[in-house]
């Protein structure tokens, strides 16, 4: 579930999903909805991603910033993820897996504008019932 937020200066989303991995994929989908009017649905190119962070909120910020980098700098739009998130033995969290995507096509996907960064402002990643929810504001 994705709900876009109405922050006056910036943009944001609230998401829910049954697992952490699905929650992070919902965040990817929300990001693409912000950046493109018609985000791509297929992509054959694959890239490996590895991230770690001290907590889940930190990890979500790093995840979104990694995706923003891939789209805006590497011109690679991730359309599917196969990721695993696990708690590290020494504390903190570790994310790794595959991003499958397509080359950036500004006109084809109807580009809506740049994202500068994910922010920590009002950021939430928390268990909700039997699943997870998150809330994030992004600077545009």
């Amino acid at each position, binding site marked *: 579930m994705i709900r*876009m937020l*109405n*922050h*006056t*200066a*910036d*943009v944001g989303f609230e998401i829910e999903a049954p697992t952490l991995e699905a929650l992070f994929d919902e965040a990817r989908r929300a990001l693409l909805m912000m950046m493109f*009017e018609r985000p791509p649905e297929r992509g054959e190119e694959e890239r490996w991603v590895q991230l770690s962070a*001290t907590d889940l*909120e*930190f990890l979500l*910020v*790093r995840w979104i*910033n990694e995706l923003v*980098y891939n*789209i*805006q*700098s590497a*011109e690679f739009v991730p359309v599917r993820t196969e990721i695993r998130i696990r708690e590290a033995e020494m504390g903190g969290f570790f994310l790794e897996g595959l991003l499958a995507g397509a080359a*950036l096509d*500004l006109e084809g996907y*109807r*580009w*809506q*504008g*740049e994202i*500068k*960064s994910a*922010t*920590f*402002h*009002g*950021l939430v990643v928390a268990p909700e019932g039997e699943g997870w929810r998150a809330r994030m*504001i992004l*600077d*545009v």
Partner: protein
Amino acid sequence: MSAFREGAAMKIKHLTAFKHRIPREGRMKVDATFYASGAILEDLKAEDYASLRQLCNVATLPGIVEPALSMPDIHWGYGFPIGGVAAFDPQREGVVSPGGVGFDINCGVRLLVSELDREELATHEDRLANALYEGIPSGVGSSRRDVKLSRKDLEEILLGGAAPLVKRGYGEPEDLDHIESGGRFPNADPKRVSGRAYERGVSQLGTLGSGNHFLEVQYVDEIYDEEAAQAFGLSLRQVTILIHSGSRGLGHQVCQDYVERFIQVASRYGIELGDRQLAAAPIESPEGEAYLGAMSGAANFAFANRQLISHFARRAFEVAGFGSKEHRLSVLYDLAHNNAKFEKHGGREVLVHRKGATRAFGPGNPELPKRYRFAGQPVLVPGDMGRYSFVLAGTKGAMSETFGSSAHGAGRKMSRRRAKKAAKGRNLVREMEDKGILVRAASRATVDEEMSEAYKDAAEVVETTHGAGIGRKVARLRPLIVVKG
């Protein structure tokens, strides 16, 4: 968790019609002062004082010098409110906060003045609009491919700001005299900038970016202060060019890198964060020094970015039939609204954070070009793309009350999603054309999000700034051509 919660009562003392104070309470270390007209106060109330609560959070940071401030264009940001000004004393454990500078480090505006008047431009407008749009890439995927920079070149720019570009022929030596701080932050340390920041910056020098960034061709339609206008070289009907852009991906990455790093060390320095986006470290700490070195590098990149955009704007005027010899475009001023600078106020050196606020030094300040010293520093306040922008002058009032700061723009009143909804079924480019304004934009979404109605009236912000004595109205500029990312 915010220190100042939603729904909590806000105690406000109204000092004058435009100046208001929130007395220190709870974890606040100093009072907060904000500037607002009756209409702006109503807007703040309508958002349940969310941005004023952010200002109160800023007032909890260590070493803050009284008061925490916000300018009349205050609006809800993340961490600091947009329009926030806060000074920190390095001698009293004062901190530096990357969130208090913002992601777009040293984002700012540059005003170029031409020797043309509106009528001379009239028959060339379409050609000029196309030449500007083609000559100045605006967004992602359209990076500059005609200016190749090596890592070494980029390091030189991070150290030297606008000057290395002028040396390479992208501008005139006198441009540098009309840029805040001469177009260069001292003490930049390129080694403090991450590899990813370099990677994001290398192809983006000389690009506008999207969102609220723009290039406008305008004309002077009203002059309020003849003497200051004359000092600034402004006259009625004169054509001007306003450029709004910042440090692009390089600056965004520097901010990301250091917000993350500062969150991790804040507790080590006993800094309790009401909002993690306010992450801070002592100015005199290894982390603080590293950020200031990287931020200064990113600030210099932003100065260089506006320098390169100006070069290509000059070239576009040539393409449109206005040769550079007969039709000079001179820099009136270039100033930033997202940075942290060491300045002397009240006899001591403090680190002034301005996030969505403009430096506005008053008359007599030795940092100003000689021809502006009597009038005060030019202060540029862009409005929305359909109405007007303003030129103000810095005042003694700003020096004594706001650490030499003033407003930076109109401020949004509508979220981007709401603006898009309001634009549905309308052709805003056609509507603007009917008003005599040509629009060239990389995406329709940007035009919809940036529609006039999405912004507060810049005139309200300017009247409040003028009324509060923290800026003096000089001239008003009306748009003729708008180039958006």
